[in-house]
């Protein structure tokens, strides 16, 4: 599944610089708002669903080399976080939907590995 299809289907808003989302393949996902659990559990290249929106999510995603973070419930990261994400090459996507809905949609799209 490519990231562009995910963005279109879930109607996500990219918060970071535009990129060639079609070339980014996502097969795995993870969800948690506890950063240490993400550290322990999120697989390489996965998409991470969380309602955390502070700067540290970028550090976590960069260390784990995640493909994107979907920030749920319309939580908005501050500009410094978005700048940091652009620097680290982390894609931030936003949705007004809750995490439960978002994960359900990703599952329907066939992203079922974790």
């Amino acid at each position, binding site marked *: 599944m*490519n990231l562009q299809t995910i963005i279109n289907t879930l109607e996500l808003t990219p918060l970071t610089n535009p990129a060639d989302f079609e070339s980014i393949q996502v097969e795995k996902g993870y969800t948690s708002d*506890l950063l240490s659990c993400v550290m*322990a559990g999120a697989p390489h290249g996965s998409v991470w669903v969380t309602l955390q929106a*502070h*700067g540290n999510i970028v*550090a976590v995603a960069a260390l784990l080399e995640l493909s994107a973070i979907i920030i749920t419930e319309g939580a908005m990261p501050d500009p410094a976080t978005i700048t940091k994400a652009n620097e680290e090459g982390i894609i931030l996507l936003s949705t007004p939907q809750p995490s439960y809905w978002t994960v359900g949609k990703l599952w329907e799209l066939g992203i079922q590995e974790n």
Partner: protein
Amino acid sequence: MDGAPRQNRVISDQEAENISRLEELAYEIRVEQVMTSNPYVFTTSQTMREATVTLRQMRISGAPVLHNGDLVGILSIEDVIRCLIEPDLDSPVTKYMTTKLITIRATDLLVDALKMFVNTKLGRLPVIDPNGKLVGIITKGDVTRGLLKALQQETQVEEMRRYRASRIFEDIESDRTSLILRYDIQAHDFTHGGSASSRIKRALIRLGASPQIARRAGIAIYEAEMNLIIHTTKGGVIRVEIEPHQISIDVYDYGPGIADVQKALQPGYSTASEEIRELGFGAGMGLVNIARCTDSMSLDSVVGKGTRLRIKIFLPQQEAMGEGPVPKETVQ
């Protein structure tokens, strides 16, 4: 998975990395960085004969046409051919030039230029400044050259860094050589949380560590770094000693100390405040993660004095760092 079938040729990871980086560069580089500044221009008073001679002598396939300094058209080789068929070489360039102008701004990104080339099938675009004045011309060739140059520069810089770093221990003779990295971590500095671990991870990759080793070290050091930020009163220090076959990480602080070390090591146990937990920290998994990612770990703490965490990651023989690349046949 989905979409059109891909080409059969297998693309290596390195190639795939370069392709996406090339695409990224198209979003970073601006038209003005790759365009031809002060291009050759025609004026409306010139004839097609003069223009034809100029194009041939200058070996260019087209040029903008100016009237009193304002861009009014563009004359390309196709226009010259139409004129030669007639033949009508004594007419002014204004008769054959294209006046339907598609321009691009100097500050636009290369990706915008690429989209315009694809959508218009044009070979060259006049580049204008905010006042609409001609400042340059950009061709598909300029874009390709600009991107390749940028990519080559980046690759060379990173390769040079990796090459130098990956051989750092090779020519130094001692009974035991190591490289020590030290990072001072401020208490409650959430803004920089994770920056020391990211930098250490990058250093390890440059030194020739495998991605798995770098990832394990990154996770362990991130957790230790966040512990210093969350729990200490005066911050602390992360000291990483890198030897060809092991990474020794020493994390120490000056208080407040851990009252019950055994409890602190239990999964799910945390003393983090409600405020900190709301940020997603304090899951009580930090030390558990550190233990999981490392080969040895010891934690000593004295309340009122401070805490010292010592961890080690051992590298397999064939994955040694800083001793140059291992001959391929020995890596199996």
